[in-house]
Structure formats: C-alpha cells, structure tokens
C-alpha cells in the first residue's frame, strides 16, 4: 500500500530479524525439546536394541498422539492465561458417547459428529462459566473434571462398550489402522498442528488469544470481545479432547468409563514442556506436539531400560520443572 513511503531506516531494522534465524531457532523451546528427544533416544538405543526399532518408534509416536491432540487443544487455553483440567473427563464423556451411539447402530459419521458435539459443548460450557461467572479457570474445570467423569458413569451405566455395530470395522481402522505405514492418528496430529499453527499466527482469533494472555484489560480496552474468544478457546480444548477420544476408542477397541482418567496432567505437562507459559501469553502448536512426544519417549525409554515404571511420574515431573526453569533462563537472557 504505502510501502514506498516506508523510511529506509525502519525497513532495515525489519530485515535485521531474518538474519539471525538460526540463533532465534536455537532460542526456541521446541528446538531444545527436540534435542532432548534425540539425546534420550540415542542414550536408550545404546542400552537396548529394542528402542530404535521401527515398530517401537511407531508405537511411541502413536501413544504420544492421543495426548498430543489434547495438548493442542490446551495450547490456546494456556496462552490466553487459563487452564483446563477437565480434558481427561471430556475425553471420557465423549468417548462413552461414541460407544453408546455406535453400539446403538449409528453409522460412523453420526457417531463422530455426536462425539465432537459433546466435546465442543462441554468445553464451551467451561468457558461460559469461567467468563460469565468470572470464576478462576482452575476451580471451574476442577468441578467439571468431576462432573464429566460422573456423567460418563451415568450415561454408560457403568457398561463397557466393545460392540460398535455396523461401524465396528471402520472405527477400529480409523483409530488403530495405518496409512502408508504410519498410524492414522499421526496424520491427524500433523494436520491439527498445522491448522492450530495457522490459527495462532495468522488470524485475528490467534492474535487476540495472545493479547488476552498478555494483558486482558488491554485487550478489552482495544475493543476485543474477550469473553467470546475465551469461550472459544475452551470449546476448542473440549473439541480436541473429543477428537482424541475418537482415535483412542478406535485404537483400544473398547470404551470404559475410566477412559482418559489422569490425562489432564500429561496434557498440561506436554503443553508446558513445549514452551507454553502457565501464566499466559506464550505457546506454540508445534511445542505442544513435541512436548507430548518427549513425555512418551521418556516413558518408553524407562520401560526399555528396565526402570521400575513407578518412577515415570518422577521423571515427567522433573522434565516439567526443567522446562519451566529453561523458560525462566531464556526470558532472563532476552
């Protein structure tokens, strides 16, 4: 438009940023986590030949994807300065919904639609209570964590669903199947990483998510409909839990009402390890996915190295602390 008027001095300063691309890359948390994954992988490979087999690596990747999808949903919530600890229960409730629908003879698209609908609405209700009643997100989603799990028990009547009617084959193929040698859920994760990355960096919605996390009252003063954006973030988180539920149900081949219990911690851990700030304002789609992969690599590595699995939580917790410390050190250096 008016580029010809752009003063030379400033254009020069704009360019300066591109030159240090490599240095900027080295400063990103994603890069550090990726390095940690590689180092960990190499170390375990030296201990045991079982780690670096294509079968095991695919398995690790697939396991990481279920949490990774939820971590993508968690990312905008954390960036906006909130938190959603009800995602495990949303996964449970929407997974049970899928089981009931398919068990009752619904075709797969109807089942998927119903599942996504439950996740979206549950998440949206989280957001609505948080914004309209002005309650802390932690407390609200702690309550709905309990409510969601209880509803899963109520609607399933404590049954296990493993008969999916006419959709049995297709749901098992979707969740547990491979395309071109790669698990289907991996494609889903890649697609959603790209979608969320574009949403966060190229749209007004993404810009406003960051703005709200940076300074909510400034966002309000700028005329942004803060409540609507926040509600949409929680709705997106619920939706991603439902997406994860569909693949997880297909992979497991059965739905119990305990499905997804405790997943909220791994989800939040993945997102934080991937560089999202628990105080809001920072986070990336790629980071959430890589964080989820790191956690799964740690779990798998410990198993293969013959470490008592009871230690897993300690290691994951250690990495969360390390990630937060790393973020602190990087922000000091800035």
């Amino acid at each position, binding site marked *: 438009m008016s580029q010809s008027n752009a003063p030379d001095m400033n254009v020069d300063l704009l360019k300066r940023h591109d030159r240090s691309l490599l240095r900027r890359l080295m400063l990103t948390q994603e890069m550090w986590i990726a390095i940690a994954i590689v180092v960990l992988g190499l170390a375990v490979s030296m201990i045991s030949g079982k780690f670096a087999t294509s079968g095991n690596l695919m398995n690790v990747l697939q396991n990481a994807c279920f949490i990774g999808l939820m971590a993508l949903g968690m990312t905008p919530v954390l960036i906006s300065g909130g938190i959603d600890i009800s995602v495990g229960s949303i996964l449970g409730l929407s997974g049970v919904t899928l089981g009931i629908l398919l068990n009752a003879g619904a075709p797969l698209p109807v089942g998927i639609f119903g599942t996504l609908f439950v996740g979206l609405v549950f998440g949206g209700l989280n957001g609505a209570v948080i914004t309209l009643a002005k309650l802390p997100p932690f407390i609200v989603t702690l309550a709905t964590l309990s409510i969601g799990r209880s509803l899963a028990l109520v609607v399933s009547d404590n049954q296990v669903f493993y008969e999916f009617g006419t959709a049995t084959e297709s749901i098992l193929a979707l969740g547990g199947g491979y395309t071109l040698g790669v698990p289907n859920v991996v494609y889903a994760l890649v697609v959603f990483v790209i979608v969320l990355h574009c949403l966060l960096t190229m749209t007004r919605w993404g810009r406003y998510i*960051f703005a709200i996390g940076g300074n909510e009252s400034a966002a309000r003063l700028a005329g942004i409909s803060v409540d609507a954006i926040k509600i949409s973030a929680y709705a997106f988180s619920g939706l991603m839990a439902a997406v994860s539920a569909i693949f997880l149900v297909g992979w497991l081949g059965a739905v119990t009402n305990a499905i997804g219990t405790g997943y909220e911690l791994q989800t939040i851990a993945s997102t934080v390890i991937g560089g999202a700030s628990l105080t809001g304002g920072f986070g990336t789609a790629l980071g959430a996915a890589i964080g989820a992969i790191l956690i799964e690599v740690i779990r798998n590595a410990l198993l293969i190295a013959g470490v008592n699995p009871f230690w897993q939580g300690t290691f994951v917790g250690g990495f969360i602390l390390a990630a937060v410390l790393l973020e602190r050190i990087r922000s000091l250096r800035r």
Partner: protein
Amino acid sequence: MSKLASLEKIVMEFGAIRALDGVSIDINRGEVLGLMGDNGAGKSTLVKTIAGNFQPTSGRYVFEDQEVRLSGPADARRHGIEVVYQDLALCNNLTAAANVFLGREPMRQVGPFRVLDKKLMNTRSAEIFQELKSETRPADLVDRMSGGQRQAVAIARTRLSNSKLVLMDEPTAAISVRQVAEVLALIRRMKEQGLSVILISHRMPDVFDVCDRVVVMRRGRKVADKRIDQSSPEEVTGLITGAIQAA
C-alpha cells in the same frame, strides 16, 4: 483557536457520592490542556466521562458542535477521541506493531482465507514511529522496551485513526527523566499535527513545559482554568491543596 469540545455543567454521581459537581471546560483544537488535582479531586472521573467510560448524571457534552452521549470507549473512538491509559494498556508479549493495531488488524486475502497483514502493520507502524521521531522498532516485543518507547507505542495507537482528541493519563508517572523528555516531545508533535491533548499529570514541570492551559480540580469542582503563561507553579500548587480557594 476554534473549539473542539465543551463540557457544560457536568455532574457525575455514584450513589451518594458526587464525583463531579457542575464542571464546565472548553477544549480547543491544537491545544494541550493540563488537568491537575490531588488524588480524589475528580480528574479520573472527568477523563472517563470525556472518554465515554461514564455517562454523566447531568450536563451537556458537546463534541464538534453536536451534543453527544457516548455509550463507551468504542463510541468515543468513532468520534475521534482516544485515550492513552496510565498503565498504557499494552500487551507485553506482542510486538510493537501488533499492539499498535490491536483490535483493528488489517487483513489480506490468501486463497479462501483472510489472514493478518503483518507486513502492512509493520510498515505502517514504522511510518508512525518515524512521524513521532521515536526509535521504536515495529517488530520488537513491547516487553523489552523502555518507558518512552512504550509510550510511543501507546500514542501510535491513537494515530491510526483520525483522532482529534487524545487523553493522556499520567504518561510520565513511572519513567526516567530522559524518557520524560521523550514523552513531552511526543506530546508537542501531536500538537503540531493539530491534535488536542488533555494531559493529566501530577508533575508540575511537565505541565508548565508542554501545556497551553491548565485546569485545576478540587473536590469535584473546577477551581481554576488559566493560560499557562498567566499562572505559576506556586499558584497551581496552592489551588491543588486548597491554600488558594480559586483563581
């Protein structure tokens, strides 16, 4: 000097509390008006009334020869009234350009999608910073900026639209001496461009440096409204504390 806006006998009550008690002020085009008063004198209430945050209990608010009842800050902005808030209302985690355009981002079409036009935001912000003679860089995070640069970002926000009146709430309260000079220079530049500025400040030297006129408030009333060259810091101090009743 032609009149841009005027407040006539504005009363603002919050329950039993009368925060503004019949305040009348004229705001002229291209004038920097200093607004002074002790804490609780009604400065903030007055500014919020002008900015559309509050609707006065009674009185007339005339802007560009028309009586207005502003429904909120967005409505005020449509009239060309912009506020630079005391805490600057910036997002530290965003770039200068992102802050300048926050809430009114230009978009461009990429295939079926409308995406943020970051290049336009950067070049336009660079132009505005150039105009303001500020060394602020559009792609820098606000987090890393000095108080003066942050002030420039906040002021640049007002330069996007066709603003006519800029309200500045304590812009020099929390910054270093060198940066104060920078901010005062920014205010002069706005005045040169024909804008009216209302400067709310506790700092006597700043007001006497850049303002054309000073209004002093005490207990919800206007106790003085003088040209700056016909007043003195001593007189204004007396008016603020009540040692001088009115002037």
